[in-house]
């Protein structure tokens, strides 16, 4: 029941309630109630102070690895996720090239619309990979929604949504990368 919230926190790092809800696709009261249950079990904790946020404990991290691996094998999805991860690894350096091109566009004389077009092109090729992942493990469908939303915001003029900010295209992609590693149990 609390698997999705635990795993979302595993992939996004320290986060406030609203970010956990946004990343998981659940509503805030449901997420908060689950976070409290997880905290009672010692799997997550809330850090006070300036960086007030929810995060996993060491035990929570181990428990997530156990639950995620069990669910993956129970669904018989390991081979499909591994195959999609191989495709992701081909796209990943290109996405990082694009993020750097975006940041350094003034220095390199690259027009902004050219980078945006290249992001859209890459996104079109990432879509079938996300679809394969979602067919194998439905929770991956949330990344497709979040990546599409970030690109949509960038295309409607919020250009910082490509690389900057917690819901930017890069940041969602970074979390997808982390999710694939965590799901398959691959160390970075």
């Amino acid at each position, binding site marked *: 029941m609390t698997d999705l919230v635990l795993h979302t926190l595993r992939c996004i790092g320290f986060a406030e309630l609203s970010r956990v809800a946004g990343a998981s696709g659940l509503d805030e009261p449901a997420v908060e109630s689950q976070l409290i249950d997880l905290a009672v079990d010692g799997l997550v904790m809330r850090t006070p*102070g300036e960086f007030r946020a929810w995060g996993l404990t060491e035990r929570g991290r181990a428990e997530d690895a156990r639950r995620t691996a069990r669910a993956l094998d129970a669904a018989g999805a390991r081979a499909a996720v591994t195959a999609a991860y191989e495709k992701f690894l081909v796209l990943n*350096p290109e996405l990082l090239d694009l*993020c750097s091109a975006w940041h350094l566009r003034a*220095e390199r004389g*690259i027009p902004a619309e050219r980078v945006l077009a290249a992001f859209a*092109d890459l996104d079109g090729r990432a879509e079938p990979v996300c679809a394969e992942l979602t067919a194998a493990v439905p929770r991956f469908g949330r990344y497709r929604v979040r990546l599409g939303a970030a690109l949509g915001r960038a295309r409607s003029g919020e250009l910082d949504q490509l*690389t900057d900010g917690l819901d930017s295209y890069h940041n969602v992609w970074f979390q997808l990368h982390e999710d694939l590693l965590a799901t398959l149990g691959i160390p970075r």
Partner: protein
Amino acid sequence: MSHVHPLRPDTAAPAAVLGGKGRGLVELLRLGLPVPPGFVVDTSACRAHLRDGSFPAAEIAAAVGDLAAGAVSVRSGAEVSMPGMMDTVLNLGPAAVPDAVRAVFASWHTPRATTYRELHGIAHDRGTAAVVQAMVFGNRDDRSGTGVAFSRDPSTGEPAPYGEVLFRAQGDQVVGGTAATRPLSDLAEREPAVGAALRAGLSRLERHYRDVCQVEFTFESGRLWFLQVRAGGLVGGAAVRAAVDLADEGLIDRRTAVDRVSAHDLASARTPRIRAGGEVLTRGQGASPGVAAGRIALTADRAVRMAAAGPVLLVRPHTSPLDLHGMAAAAGILTGRGGPASHAAVVARSMGKPAVVAATGLVVDPAAGSLRAGDRVLPEGTLVTIDGTGGEVVLGDPGSTTAAAGPHLRRLLAWA
């Protein structure tokens, strides 16, 4: 018309045919500098191969036969440099050369290379050349090694050769940042003849190109070989200083010096740089410009906690989304792995924080609460400063300055 060109001083074909790497190797030979024997399968062969599958198999077989090498390398090299975008295959048997050349040609069309050309406005129909050379082994023995060198310091523009060397290693280990590299002074000490030949070669190249040059080199059992040369490539304050010095040395005129410096170089010449004089612990690649001083924290959680008491430098082997809160709390970010296009670099730039990535010989041990940088072991909490332009990692806080490029910048602006 032959598609295969021997690497010889009298090979006349331009970079459009031989590729930038192939043309550079011919220039090295023209200057009397040592280059492993080899040949170039040209860009027109690539275009034909990609168009209709044709392939100069017989010509390549003959050239491989002439080479009579036990092992060869096959490297891509387009007219316009596309670093890291296409294939390189090392240590092949001669029989495997045709397939490797085909693979290099095919790598022109990978989506990543295609996107790179889209971004940089490079035509998609040019193709790449393939450079086939006898292997030289930097890992042969204790008198072997490999490295990269610049004719002037790429961080400051200072007119003295700068470079890094790895003894008993192959070239990919320098670029990969997996082992701790040594400064060129170590090469001069351990292999004085190689060090002297390298310096002389850099000086000859600089006078030929009338610009700062960068080379890749390998030495095998005490014998130096040049594997690549590229002219230019300095940015910011280093570009300003090099242009002014080259004009003073009479290699270029003042008008050329002014033309070589971009508006962006002028702007970034004013970016603060680390003040010289501190003990340099290691160097990495500058990934997000600016200077940051702080006490080192080895995990994101520690960075958040320590930040309450003053500026913190987050030091990680690499970064994951789990480090984001630590990056947000830190004044700067230092990683042992990755590159200028890594997640860490992207996030640091998006947060506007100085970052150095791929610092050589950096071992982060959060469990022991210590950081190893080359020969030094630093406990968590040690004050360290990074320069996200030049990639320096310095013990303590030597301060920062915008004055380094000052006199050169003023003179250049007076010439404009």
